[in-house]
């Protein structure tokens, strides 16, 4: 299990999927901040002004963390940022579900206010409900692997390299 979690290809796959997911998720929200703010209001978590601040800042943090994951720069910190966002989203979704509030569009990808009921994807994937919680838990798992499990050496790397000291500062010339 530990070997799988540290596989370099597995890490690359997770990084590209998670990074692409978050970049895509940020775009519509960045393009229409006021429409996204209305959706944050529907969650009824924090009042209008804190909701405005969340609507303005969170999509850009998603975009930046997603780009860093795609580019392989500051990977662990970007993954930790994504994990933090997901924890915040999960906490907010739990609060929404506990209070029995009906949020038809979670604002995860699209800020559209009203869509035809037959539109793809189906409604249960758009609202705040079990699907959203399950998806975010899977994404949180992926982000945690990237943040907290270092990849093992790829094939062809020098033998014994894994046993080297793991602190970056020790690997760098002083």
């Amino acid at each position, binding site marked *: 299990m530990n070997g799988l979690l*540290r596989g370099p290809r597995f890490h690359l796959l997770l990084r590209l999927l998670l990074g692409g997911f978050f970049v895509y998720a940020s775009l519509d929200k*960045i*393009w*229409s*901040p*006021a429409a996204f*703010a*209305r959706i944050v*209001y*529907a*969650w*009824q978590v924090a*009042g*209008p*002004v804190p*909701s*405005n*601040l969340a*609507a*303005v*800042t*969170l*999509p*850009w*943090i*998603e*975009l*930046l*963390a997603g780009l*860093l994951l795609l580019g392989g720069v*500051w990977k*662990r*910190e*970007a993954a*930790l*940022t994504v994990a*933090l966002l997901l924890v915040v989203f999960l906490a907010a979704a739990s609060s929404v579900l506990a209070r029995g509030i009906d949020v038809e569009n979670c604002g995860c990808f699209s800020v559209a206010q009203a869509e035809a009921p037959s539109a793809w994807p189906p409604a249960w994937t758009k609202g705040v409900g079990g699907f959203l919680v399950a998806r975010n838990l899977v994404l949180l798992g992926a982000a945690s692997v990237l*943040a*907290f*499990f*270092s*990849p*093992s*050496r790829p094939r062809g*790397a020098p033998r014994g*390299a*894994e*046993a*080297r000291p*793991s*602190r*970056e500062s020790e*690997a760098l010339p002083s």
Partner: protein
Amino acid sequence: MHWEGACYFHDMSLDWKRFVLILATGAGAGLLWNAASGRGFAIGRSVLAQAGDELVTAADAKVLLGRGALFLDARPRDFWKMSRIPGSLPLPEEDFERGLAVVEARLRRASAIVVYCSGYGCEASHVVARKLRERGFPAAILDEGLPAWQDAAGPMDSEPRP
């Protein structure tokens, strides 16, 4: 080059400065985009408010109720049937024209009109108040709706209506 074998939990090699920098840069970019892109909005007030809207706080609305102002409930009618601000009449956003025909005579006699709905995320009170203004009725909006009203210890009438 370094191929790390350990879990980062153990070697603690996450760089917290980078993590904070990502959050700060993302938040800063968002604020800048909102301020300078032309696609932003005023962060300091509800995004539902528009020029021409008249908002009243729950405290002021209580005074207006005491003076006999007419309160209108913009939520779906079933919510009004369950509980309402005392003396209020239903004027649901989705059934505006029919509801208006019923309450129009009362509107003409009202000294002041306050429209409310279920909270800061609810746009119905804004929509109904604007439609009333278009028809010449100077309707105000209860700021942040019923939760603010109840926080201000405003009275509620919870007797079910048919």
